[in-house]
């Protein structure tokens, strides 16, 4: 559907490639829908899919680790401080630096990327899960015990459901943070929306590519955040009844 113009029509301004030599792209209008359409299949959609996958894997692993650590710290108070110190330390390492630091021992691969991403989810998720578990009123726990629940039953049926709003709040922050961080994964591992953003930034000011690639990352983050809010509303109908 895209009719390629003769190359000489491209002019000297944009170092152009056959892929975006529609007249709109050649004149570098603000946003060329046809360029996005023709690049959606080969470039943008795969990048988006990889980005979602990078994020999901990182958040899932981070959630499993954080949940275990939070349950441990919930039962044994001594475990809280060292975990907080360590996860805060990980969280404060600048992302670009951490990616490079991991390349030395691990290499430029998916493991280095995921380890870096996971390490940024830990503080957020651990803190929120623990805060949620701790916010369950003591009377509620006594009532659960009085009903004859074992600690395990009380955890699954009382504490975790009541901690859900705080846990989802943590997940929202973690997901959005990881979506943002995953844009720089491309520096060590050629995947995700960082790839088209990087090529857009490197290709001179071709506006459509810059806006499409950057906009997709932003829309993905907003969409994921909205999805988690909706999920939380579905899972915790009682918080709506209270009017909060």
């Amino acid at each position: 559907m895209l009719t390629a113009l003769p190359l000489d029509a491209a002019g000297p301004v944009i170092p152009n490639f056959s892929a975006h030599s529609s007249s709109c792209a050649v004149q570098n209008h603000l946003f060329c829908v046809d360029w996005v359409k023709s690049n959606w299949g080969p470039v943008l959609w795969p990048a988006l899919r990889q980005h979602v996958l990078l994020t999901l894997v990182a958040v899932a692993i981070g959630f499993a680790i954080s949940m275990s650590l939070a349950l441990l710290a919930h039962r044994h108070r001594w475990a809280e401080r060292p975990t907080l110190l360590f996860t805060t330390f990980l969280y404060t390492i600048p992302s670009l630096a951490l990616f490079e630091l991991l390349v030395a021992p691990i290499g430029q691969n998916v493991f280095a990327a995921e380890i870096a991403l996971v390490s940024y989810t830990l503080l957020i998720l651990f803190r929120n899960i623990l805060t949620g578990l701790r916010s369950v009123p003591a009377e509620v726990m006594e009532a659960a015990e009085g009903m004859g629940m074992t600690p395990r039953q009380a955890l699954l049926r009382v504490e975790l459901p009541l901690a859900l709003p705080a846990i989802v709040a943590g997940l929202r922050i973690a997901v959005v943070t990881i979506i943002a961080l995953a844009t720089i994964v491309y520096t060590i591992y050629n995947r995700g929306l960082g790839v088209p953003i990087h090529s857009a930034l490197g290709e001179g000011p071709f506006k459509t590519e810059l806006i499409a690639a950057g906009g997709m990352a932003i829309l993905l983050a907003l969409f994921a955040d909205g999805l988690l809010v909706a999920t939380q509303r579905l899972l915790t109908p009682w918080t709506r009844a209270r009017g909060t």
Partner: protein
Amino acid sequence: MSEFGGAFRFILHDGAVAGYPNLPSLVHLALETLKVGAIGVGISLVLAAPLGIWLGHIHRGSFFAINIGNVGRALPSLAVLAIGDAFLGLGLAVVELALVVLAFAPIVTNAYLGVVEVDPELVDAARGMGMSELEILRRVELPLAVPLVFAGIRTAALFVISTATIASLAGFSGTLGDVIANETSYHFAGVLGAAICVAALALAVEGALALVQRAITPRGVRIERAERGAIADAVIAGA
């Protein structure tokens, strides 16, 4: 781990690489990174702190103050740089725009939470003593809000330092990110060395701000709360 040995040699030689005599010194790049970051945090502070404090004082706009935090986080800096590049062309202005967007969220959310969570009975007592609104803000609410307000600034500063280096990925040069983005000239040892420098710089800034916070927190407020980590207080804000 010969890579780490090379990285530390690179740092000890202040960024000198054999065969490239004209490279800037690491100290210079670190200072530039600090400058770029300080401008971003500074602008954000001027815009966000008064807004958050004011919203907290009038107990309004909780939806705005908390959700602006989530929206701010949702804007990947590299994406902001890319879109800024499309409209303004890449330069210091676009980089600072991305940094201000990044720093705005934690500062406004924490300033709001810090002031809004001040015990309403204290504010009533102050009002009963005949204090004006401005006096209440200055002598009661702000001193009590210092730990949280500062937690926001520290978080923002951390984010901004590491993101100032990301600007070099977008072609903005002058920061430590230049080294990280230029493996061809600096080799892997240089990239690693610069990464270590960025981490150290961020932690140093965080530590320096923690000291400032300690100095200006009224003694009575220095309870357990002040000991919590910088990010810690901001984390739950999405609830």
